[in-house]
């Protein structure tokens, strides 16, 4: 099919080329890169971010943004720590943190979906507010000393060489992929992201859909926060601070339009692989943090520029070709240089 072909040489194709380039470079320059341990580390070091990136894809395709995810992660981590410290059984503390995460999402979702406030403003408030609550809970301290089973889940392999968080990511990726690309709900998310007004007039309950997505975002973010607490073994008020930008970066690099309605999880999956492998390779080569940030930043700039330049070039090409063929829909072909 031509559509499929176009996709192959489109954004995902480009990401695939970049990924192949990064992998080849890494393999040649860093001998340890291909080892299984390193491949697992590569995911494990950013696992919480990439889990949240999955749900962020839903949010952005739906035409919204959630800046509060990192603060929800921090809040969930701090809540687990504080509850545990005050004698609550760990399992109960985890459930409470998940519940609070979902409530944070519901709070965001309510203002966005039912009151109609822009998600940028609402979740920006959430980003500051939820972080504030986390800091109040834990103040300037750092809490650790969690039960062994909890930190073991975060740090040790669970099945074969794979830790729990990596298995969770794989499951969530498949689940998210099926929902977004193959289910009716997934199609609704695209429709609403493309044009919320039209969707509403066609009888779709956009409000419930948006609320549901924000609740999912809060829930997954709190899960990620708990996983982070287990991996690090200690929590403080600024845990996960600033992660939202890395997460949104991954989604945008994956070809998801910030305007909503376009993009898919295959692209986001590839973008995640590109960023993680790039970071890992640079880290193995002892490239400093400043340069790493610079390289990732350049990649993002290019990812914004290239599609737009390509589109402009494409349009110009179309215009030139159109008059020669019998331009079926072309109506404004008056512009010719």
């Amino acid at each position: 099919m031509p559509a499929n072909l176009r996709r192959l040489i489109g954004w995902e194709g480009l990401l695939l080329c970049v990924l192949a380039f990064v992998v080849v470079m890494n393999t040649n320059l860093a001998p340890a890169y291909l080892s299984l341990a390193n491949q697992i580390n590569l995911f494990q070091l950013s696992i919480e971010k990439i889990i949240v990136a999955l749900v962020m894809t839903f949010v952005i395709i739906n035409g919204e943004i959630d800046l509060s995810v990192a603060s929800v992660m921090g809040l969930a981590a701090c809540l687990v720590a504080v509850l545990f410290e005050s004698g609550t059984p760990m399992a109960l503390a985890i459930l409470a943190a998940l519940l609070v995460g979902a409530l944070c999402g519901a709070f965001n979702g309510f203002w966005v979906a039912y009151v109609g406030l822009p998600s940028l403003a609402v979740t920006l408030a959430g980003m500051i507010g939820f972080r504030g609550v986390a800091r109040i809970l834990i103040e300037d301290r750092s809490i650790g000393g969690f039960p062994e089973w909890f930190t073991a889940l975060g740090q040790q392999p669970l099945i074969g060489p794979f830790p729990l968080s990596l298995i969770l990511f794989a499951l969530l990726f498949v689940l998210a992929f099926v929902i977004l690309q193959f289910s009716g709900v997934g199609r609704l998310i695209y429709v609403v992201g493309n044009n919320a007004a039209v969707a509403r007039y066609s009888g779709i309950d956009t409000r419930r859909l948006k609320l549901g997505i924000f609740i999912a975002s809060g829930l997954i973010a709190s899960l990620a926060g708990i996983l982070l607490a287990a991996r690090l073994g200690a929590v403080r008020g600024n845990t996960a601070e600033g992660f939202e930008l890395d997460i949104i970066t991954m989604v945008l690099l994956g070809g998801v339009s910030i305007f909503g309605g376009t993009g898919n999880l295959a692209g986001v999956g590839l973008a995640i692989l590109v960023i993680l492998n790039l970071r890992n390779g640079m880290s193995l080569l002892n490239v400093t943090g400043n340069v790493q940030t610079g390289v990732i930043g350049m990649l993002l700039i290019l990812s914004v520029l290239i599609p737009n330049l390509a589109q402009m070039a494409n349009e110009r090409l179309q215009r030139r070709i159109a008059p020669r063929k019998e331009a079926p829909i072309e109506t404004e072909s008056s512009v010719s240089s």
Partner: protein
Amino acid sequence: MMATKRHVSVSIGLIIALLLAACGAPQTQTPTAAPAPTSAPAPTSAPEPTRAPDGAVVTATPGLNIDMILLPKFLGIAVFDQANEGAQEAHAELRNQGKLIFTGPTAENSVAGQIETLTNAATQGVKAVMLSNNAGDQIAAAAQAAQQAGVTVVTWDSPIPSAQGETVFVAQVDFNETGRVMADMALSILGPQGGEFAILSASPDAANQNAWIAAMKEVLKEPKYANLKLVDTVYGNDQSEESYKQALALVDKHPNLKLIMAPTTVGIAAAAKAMTDEGLCDRVKVSGLGLPAEMASYTLSGCAPQFALWSFKDLGYLTYYLTYGLATGQLKGVEGERFNAGRMGTYTIEKDPTRPKGLRVLMGPFTVYTAENVNK
């Protein structure tokens, strides 16, 4: 639909602004042009070799081949560059055939970045990491994993609070002594009538800062310091701009404030600049731990009449000697072990009085800088 469009464009603007802010931050740090203050009082009063238990002083065999990483809290801070100079000096002296790599994260990514470097060190086959910890106990799991993979983890400048995952900590000075030196400087600046003062620290989770502040609070309980009143502790995260703002905020918040004590080289320079810029030097003095090269003008102008520091170059040098010995198996990393640290003489691994489970090597001593010796 129009509304959504507008929201979206606002969103994009904001996100870009956020991204730019994130990218811009590291560049605002103090430039690193400061020459090392090595000419300052050399540690000729060599740290007394705490009475040797049996066993001789270990002098490491030079010329072995091990890769080592010197990992500061983050890059772009003058003192960490000086520590690197010292480590490179030791690296050359010991003729290590391997590499000494100086790398670190950005300030915003410090915790995750340090964990990443430590984790990947094991993968790369690096034999030792010398860490100035900025992640509190959040790095302990990664440090333990690295140790299990055969990496020697030595901390310097700032330890792992629980001591988990760390073999030995190289303490620049005795943490309790830091508290006393700061209290003494405050007393000598404010005089016997005393007054209100505030602390401008780095980050709330920097173990060294917290230990010094705690030690100072302990010393302040003595009757001699009864008139010194600590009214506030704020954090500038070792970022110049943030520390500058925090210093000014302190003055606004406490009208009777007479002194800002900043136990961080970034904080003290920023505070002194803030007071100088706003013409507040007559009212509020600045003191703490600072680099002579950065502080000289403020000390001569009387804005920061006294400050203290040790040599970071020596700290890097000593840390390297210890780590080389440990990573090559010539030192075991047990209490009472003595070793030779090149030009700096003999040191002993001892119990760390500030951390129940930790071991340390104490470097010392302190130098207090005034208008008399700041330019020497």
